[in-house]
Each structure stands twice: as structure tokens, then as C-alpha cells.
């Protein structure tokens, strides 16, 4: 994990000279004070004047300025205060030793205190960083929605570094893409190319100074595998490498968690698709084989033993052949519709449609099926035209009616109605059948869904309502199933968009194009 420091400042001279300058001034002050005081009273220990200076220098500037102060103090004392005056020679070396001990101790104590202070500060900083890392880890682990992990990372990094930051992940084309951005800085093309360079180079390589990017990039690795890039914007503020390494480790873990979650989601979808495929295959083979077996059996009986059968038996066999063939045709029709939907070959012809026409045509097609029920129609005479594909809509309606006829007891009412709602027309089909639970009303449009699969239940492909929904959605509408519960009947509610303007029905086409509904 490599970083680079964007701005190297060289204010070395001033910063280094200042302590010595200040120390020298303090020494001169102390010397003058000592001179004044010694000329007035016979004070023996001039070290009293210089020890505070050495101490001050040591505390403020560290060991070297303090040692400089000690040396200067010795020289000043020897030259100005200890006889012979104005000479570096000294008569009594005891005085010099005293002075050297006093000032030397001061010089050493100072840096010790400084070191203690610095380590306390370092400890404090380390504690803050540890706390920050802990917080980041906690936050990232708490993100429930894995898709939000990159944004959470960016937010957390921004919080602890105080810099705008970006998270880059591999896009579909293998190049890095910005997955999350925090702090409002923008990531431009050149930045991306810098990132791409970092991506491809094996060891995390820092671009040289002035590489054209305002971003400081860090490769995020999980083991040896690069999983992403963390970019900090104009990060002149130094982030300690150790801290950065720990932070990147946390990020890598979070990203890995996201990757694993995605992978398990894909596996889950695959498993579901397999399940669906199996269900479709078994359903298709069942729905095709059953009528075929009946047809084959009845036909071969007629062919081989027709003369031995009574007239009634022959009639029965012929009827069985017809009924099963009809069932086969019905199923193949649905399968064809489904294939058309799945292949995306559904091209609805949307035009103004009168629901009166669609409902009448659908009921006409369902007549044999609905013969045992009482079908009722409730269409408002002023119902506006809808914008739809009449044929797809009719097919959707036929499927729903077939379903209703299948699940509602003979003799009960099946009601088809429509009314003008605020911004759409609602078409509804209500039956007094067995109804469904809330769970079932959500699943009823799924492939091959059947409310019950027990033997003796109404047969069917389980495709009808799936197709209805696909057709209605292709026409820009929507459908929901509603039921108060089992035994309470079902209402299918279809929302259809209005035809934008409605002609007034005058004798000339095009007249009153912008008029209100007739």
C-alpha cells in the first residue's frame, strides 16, 4: 500500500535557526540581568540566572538548542563573570563544575519532558485512530444492503480523513469505475486513466508528482487480488501509513463481503431459474402427454374395436378425442403466447379501443366455457376509449374469464365491468369463486402457478394469468388480483391508460379532436 505526499514544504532554515536565535537572546538577557545583580550585591551563584534559560530552551526547542545554551552559558560565565574577567581562563574550576552540572541537568530534563509530552500525544492520536478504525469497521459491518457498501465506505473514509474520497471498482469491461463518491469532488477521465494505470501495475504504484490527478490513490487488495481503489482528494494532510493500511484492510473486507453476497445472489437466481425450467418442462410434458394419451387410446379403440362398440360408446370415444384435442390446442395456444412474450416478439398495436368491443368479443369467445355461469356486463355508457391493443387485451380477458369459469361454481355470477377512474379506465372481472389468500393473490400471475395442485382440482396449464399480465403490461396497463380471502371470490383489476383525446362523434372524422368524452 503506497502513498505519496503531494506537497513537500522546505521551510527548514527558518524553523531550525529560530530556537538558537531565541536561546541566544534569552542568554544575553540572562547575562545582562546577572551583571546588574552581581554589581549591586555579592551573589555567588550566577548559574541561577542561566539555568532557567537552558530549561526554557530545552522544553521549547529540545536537546540541541539546550546543549547550545549550556555551552554558551559556560563561555559567558568564564568570560564575563569568573575571574579573570574578559578571559576564558578560570581561577576556580569548582565554580565551572557547579555551573556545568546545573545547566547540564536542565538540558537533559527538558527533552525528557518533551519526549513524555510527545509520546502522550502520540498515544492519544493512536487511540483516536483506533477508535476511528473501530467505528469504520462497525459502520461497514452494519450496512445491510450490500449494494450500498461502496457508498458507506466512501462516507466513512471521508469522515475519518476529512477529505473527499472515491471508491473505484472493476466495471463490466474490467476497467475501474467510480462506485461511490463522497465529499463533492468530481472524478474525471484523466483520474480514471491514472486509476487504470494503478490497476494494471502489480505492486501498488503511486503516480509521480504532477501526474495530472488531484486524487491520491490507494489500491485495495484482498490477499493478492486487487478488488478496488480508494482515492482521496487533495490529501496533503498526512494520513499515517499504518492507519491507511488498517483502513484499506477494513475496506477490502467490506468489499469482499459485498462480492460474496452478490455471488450468492446470482447462485440463488440460477437455482430458481433451474427450478422454474424443471417446473415448465414437467408441466409441458404432462400437459401434452395427457391429452395425447387419451386421443391415442380413444382413436385406436375406435379403429380396432369400433364395430364391437355400441353407438353410445363410439360417441363417447369420439367426444373424448375431440375434447382432448381441444385441450391440446388450448395449451399450445398459451405456450405460443408465452414463447412470443419471452422472445420479446410482442409488438402491441396501440390505438384507441372501445372496451365495449373487447368485452363483447372476449365473452363471445368464452361462450361455451361460460355457458354454466351467469355472465354480466357493467360498462358505463360514457366510458372513454382506452389506448391499448384490442387483440392482446381480448386475449388477456379471455384467459381471466377462463380462469374464473374454472374456479367459480356453475350458476354463479361472473361480472365484467369498467369505469372511468381519475387518470385511467379500470376494467374488472369479479367472480364468486373460491377466492384466494393474500399470498396467493401475489403469486397468481407467476409461471405455472396454480392455487392448488391436488388431484381432482380443475386442470389447466397455469399459464393463462401469466400471459394476461404480460399482455396487459405490454399494452401499458397493470393488473392485480384482489380477494377478501378463501371462499370470498376474486376480483381482477386491470388499469388501462386513456386514449388521449376523444372525438365528439360528429359526422366528420377529425372534428372535435380536442373535445371532451362523448
Amino acid at each position: 500500500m503506497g502513498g505519496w505526499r503531494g506537497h513537500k514544504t522546505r521551510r527548514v532554515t527558518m524553523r531550525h535557526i529560530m530556537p538558537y536565535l531565541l536561546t541566544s537572546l534569552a542568554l544575553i538577557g540572562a547575562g545582562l540581568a546577572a551583571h546588574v545583580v552581581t554589581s549591586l550585591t555579592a551573589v555567588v551563584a550566577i548559574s541561577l540566572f542561566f539555568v532557567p534559560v537552558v530549561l526554557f530552551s530545552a522544553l521549547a526547542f529540545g536537546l540541541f538548542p539546550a546543549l547550545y545554551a549550556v555551552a554558551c552559558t559556560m563561555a559567558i560565565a568564564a568570560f564575563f563573570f569568573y575571574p579573570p574577567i574578559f578571559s576564558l581562563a578560570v581561577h576556580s574550576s569548582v565554580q565551572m563544575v557547579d555551573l556545568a552540572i546545573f545547566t547540564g541537568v536542565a538540558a537533559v530534563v527538558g527533552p525528557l519532558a518533551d519526549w513524555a509530552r510527545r509520546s502522550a500525544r502520540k498515544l492519544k492520536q493512536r487511540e483516536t485512530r483506533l477508535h476511528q478504525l473501530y467505528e469504520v469497521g462497525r459502520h461497514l459491518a452494519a450496512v445491510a444492503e450490500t449494494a450500498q457498501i461502496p457508498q458507506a465506505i466512501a462516507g466513512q473514509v471521508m469522515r475519518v480523513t476529512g477529505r473527499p474520497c472515491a471508491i473505484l471498482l472493476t466495471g463490466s469491461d474490467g476497467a475501474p469505475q467510480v462506485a461511490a463518491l463522497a465529499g463533492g469532488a468530481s472524478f474525471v477521465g484523466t483520474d480514471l486513466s491514472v486509476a487504470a494505470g494503478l490497476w494494471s501495475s502489480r505492486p501498488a504504484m503511486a503516480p509521480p508528482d504532477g501526474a495530472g490527478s488531484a486524487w491520491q490513490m490507494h489500491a485495495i487488495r484482498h490477499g493478492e487480488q486487487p478488488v478496488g481503489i480508494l482515492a482521496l482528494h487533495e490529501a496533503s494532510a498526512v494520513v499515517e501509513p499504518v492507519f491507511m493500511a488498517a483502513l484499506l484492510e477494513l475496506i477490502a473486507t467490506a468489499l469482499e463481503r459485498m462480492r460474496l453476497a452478490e455471488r450468492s445472489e446470482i447462485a440463488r437466481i440460477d437455482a430458481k431459474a433451474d427450478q422454474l425450467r424443471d417446473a415448465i418442462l414437467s408441466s409441458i410434458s404432462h400437459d401434452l402427454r395427457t391429452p395425447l394419451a387419451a386421443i391415442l387410446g380413444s382413436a385406436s379403440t375406435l379403429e380396432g374395436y369400433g364395430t364391437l362398440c355400441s353407438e353410445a360408446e363410439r360417441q363417447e370415444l369420439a367426444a373424448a378425442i375431440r375434447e382432448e384435442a381441444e385441450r391440446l390446442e388450448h395449451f399450445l395456444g398459451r405456450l405460443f403466447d408465452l414463447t412470443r412474450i419471452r422472445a420479446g416478439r410482442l409488438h402491441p398495436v396501440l390505438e384507441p379501443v372501445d372496451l365495449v368491443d373487447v368485452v363483447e368479443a372476449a365473452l363471445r369467445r368464452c361462450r361455451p366455457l361460460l355457458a354454466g355461469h351467469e355472465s354480466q356486463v357493467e360498462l358505463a355508457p360514457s366510458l372513454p376509449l382506452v389506448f391499448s391493443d384490442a387483440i392482446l387485451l381480448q386475449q388477456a380477458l379471455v384467459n381471466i374469464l377462463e380462469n374464473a369459469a374454472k374456479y367459480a361454481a356453475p350458476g354463479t355470477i361472473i361480472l365484467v365491468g369498467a369505469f372511468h377512474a381519475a387518470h385511467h379506465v379500470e376494467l374488472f372481472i369479479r367472480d364468486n369463486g373460491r377466492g384466494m389468500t393474500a399470498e396467493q393473490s401475489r403469486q397468481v400471475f407467476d409461471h405455472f402457478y396454480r392455487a392448488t395442485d391436488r388431484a381432482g382440482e380443475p386442470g389447466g396449464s397455469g399459464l393463462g394469468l401469466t400471459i394476461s399480465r404480460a399482455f396487459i403490461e405490454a399494452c401499458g396497463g397493470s393488473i392485480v388480483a384482489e380477494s377478501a380471502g378463501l371462499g370470498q371470490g376474486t376480483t381482477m383489476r386491470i388499469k388501462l391508460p386513456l386514449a388521449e383525446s376523444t372525438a365528439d362523434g360528429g359526422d366528420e372524422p377529425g372534428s372535435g379532436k380536442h373535445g371532451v368524452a362523448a
Partner: protein
Amino acid sequence: MSNARTILVVDDEKQIRRFLRTGLAVHGYDVIEAESGTEALRLAPTKAPDLMVLDLQLGDMDGLDVLKRIREWSWMPVLILSVRDRELEKVKAFEMGADDYITKPFGVAEFVARVNALLRRIPEVAVQPVFSVGDLSIDMARRQVMRDGTEVRLSPKEYAVLQHLARHAGKVVTHGQMLNEIWGSDHAEDAHYLRIFMRKLRQKIERDPTQPRYIVTELGIGYRLRMQDQLEALA
């Protein structure tokens, strides 16, 4: 059997021809079979059938082309055999002069009913100045429309549309044909307008305009004014 009507069945599927022949023969029709468009065009002028059953998907040529060639010289009724989801093809067939269509697969009873209706219809509509269905009657000589014994007041365009439908009673009149005939070719695309217009007409002639019984829609194709036998078939 000398006065038996002759029907030309054009289909390239042997199984279909066989079952149509059986069904029609049982009802007293003479059947001529053609397994290709070419054969149909050869047989039609020489055998002078009373009606043609035409599959649109033939091995050698498009059924629509056969229809076009036949219509150049003959007005015999043509019943089209078509498959589901080919509305455009049906519209074209009607505009080329087909009289009715039936969607495959179908039962023989329904098929024979269509054939009977097409053959019975020819003299009726042509000769009678009054067309009646249910409680609706259209007197084309007096330009008078009665429902349940009461005169219905129609605008001139409404009457024109109803008369047009009555002249082709029992058959499908496509949206395009209707707009073209009554309003002229400028308005052949105005489906929106036609829907509203038909709704108004139905309000005047239907007992329940939300459940029309006389003027019914062939979705994606056009309208049909039912004949009495078609209305009775519903009961």
C-alpha cells in the same frame, strides 16, 4: 343430387381436405378438392363451384394471390381458413373480397354453419329491400330504420354506415373499407373517430349498447352486422 351445391376446398393438407370433404358431403354438398393454388385456379373456372374454401397458406403460392385472381372474374363466396394472430392477413383477405374467415383449428359443425350461412345469404340481401335482424329493420327503399316498431332517427352518415353494413350483412366490413366508403380515402386511418361513431350508432340501434348484439366487432379487422341466423346461433 343434380341441384347440390358444389364447393371447392383449397388446402395443401390432405388431412384437412379429408375431414372437410366428409363434413360437407354429410350435409349434401358436392366437393371438389385442390391441393395447390395453381390447381384451384385451374378448377375454379371449369367446375364453376358455388363457394370456395381457401387456406391462406398453400404450398405453391400465397392464398391471398389466389383470392385476387379469382376475384378478377368471380363473385362466388370465399371462406378463408386462417390461423390465430394473423389479423393483418385477415384484413387483407377481406379487402380483397373474402366473405368470411374461420380460425384453425375449428370443429366441423362451426365450419358447416359458416358455409350454409354464406350460401343462403346470396339471394336474400341482393333481392330484399328490407333487412331485418332481431327487432331491428332497415328499409333501404324508404331509408327508414325501425327498432321494436319505433323509428330510429339517424344522421345521414349513420344511415350510410348502417346501410353499408346491411348490404354486406353477415360479413365483415373492415375499418378501412368503412372509412373509405363513407368518408373517403382521406380518412382511412382514423380508427379513433370510427370507434366513437360506432358507439353512437350502437346507442341508437342496440338494446344495450354496452353489449352489442347486432353490430359486433371482429377485433383488429372490422365490424359485422349480424344476420338473423347468426343471431339465432347465439341463443
